[in-house]
């Protein structure tokens, strides 16, 4: 776990800027600093601290799956018996093809995304998971995508409430 770190208004402004408009320039930190009225060194140090404290996962390209990979993927919902959620989640998370795995408050209480080289491989992994978890196929929902309408994972920062319980001046 990451500890308590208090963010000031400038930190929140930096988070918003490096999410929305990260400059693709040789002097990135000068560009960020100029936009916010701070020095390049201060900009870099703040971004470093925000990443070390876990507010930023990474600064990286977000790739379009259809253009960089030919893998098949699906979303699976599972009805896990009460009391077995963590155990079953651990079995599922161990597969490298599982990228997201969440508890959700519903009769189907565990949902994960799975990818594999093709649909046959997907089905094989699914069967193996059913065997390993001893949960029957009737407790699994296999819901592959038919149409994509939107993927745009960006947030509007709210310094007043987000992040920590203190230190937001």
């Amino acid at each position, binding site marked *: 776990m990451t500890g308590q770190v208090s963010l000031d208004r400038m930190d929140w402004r930096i988070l918003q800027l*490096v*999410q*929305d*408009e*990260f400059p*693709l*320039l*040789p002097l*990135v930190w000068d560009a960020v600093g100029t936009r916010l009225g701070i020095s390049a060194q201060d900009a870099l140090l703040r*971004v*470093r601290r925000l990443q070390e404290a876990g507010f*930023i*996962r*990474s*600064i*990286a*390209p*977000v*790739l*379009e*799956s259809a*253009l*960089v*990979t*030919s*893998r098949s993927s699906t979303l699976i919902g599972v009805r896990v018996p009460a009391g077995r*959620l*963590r155990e079953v*989640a651990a079995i*599922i998370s161990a597969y490298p093809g599982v*990228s*997201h*795995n*969440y*508890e*959700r*408050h*519903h009769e189907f209480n565990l*949902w*994960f*995304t799975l990818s594999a*080289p093709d649909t046959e491989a997907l089905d094989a992994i699914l069967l193996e998971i059913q065997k390993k978890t001893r949960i029957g196929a009737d407790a699994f*929902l*296999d*819901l*592959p*995508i*038919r*149409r*994509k309408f*939107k*993927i*745009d*994972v*960006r*947030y509007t920062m*709210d310094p007043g*409430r*987000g*992040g920590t319980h203190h230190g937001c001046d």
Partner: protein
Amino acid sequence: MDAIDRAIVMRVQDGIPLVDHPFADVAREIGIPEQEILARIERLRNEGVIRRFGARINNRRCGFTANAMIAWKVPEERVEEVGGLFAGNPGVTHCYERKIIPGRWEHNVFTMVHCQSENDVNHLVEQLANMAGVPDYLVLISGEEFKRTVSVRITGDTEKAEV
């Protein structure tokens, strides 16, 4: 994508180094000029291979602790229209149509929303339902996060398609 594009993406897909001149450092590692690396990233972005380049935010850490998947039951002939409406809402980060399983799961359109409280989630969902005129939906609030990794990655082998 050629071999150099691929080398660049593989090097930066888990994050650029947080140093004074990140692109110069990566360029030196790969053995090309800094201007070329920037031009190639720009080109990949224009081609749509890179959807965006920037910080991936840890939403829970930044206060977005009420996250939900909403599954909507949308008549087949309205999916295109409703999908477009949901996609146009800035509070929606993902919107997909998924296959149904007749008799077991018939909610076919999925959206993800990220808010600061469950109250905000419910408010946003009501707004979406009214706007699209879709009264039949399920709100699945996220509980524990067991795993979260970057799902779209380039790997060293040859499984990805050439662009």
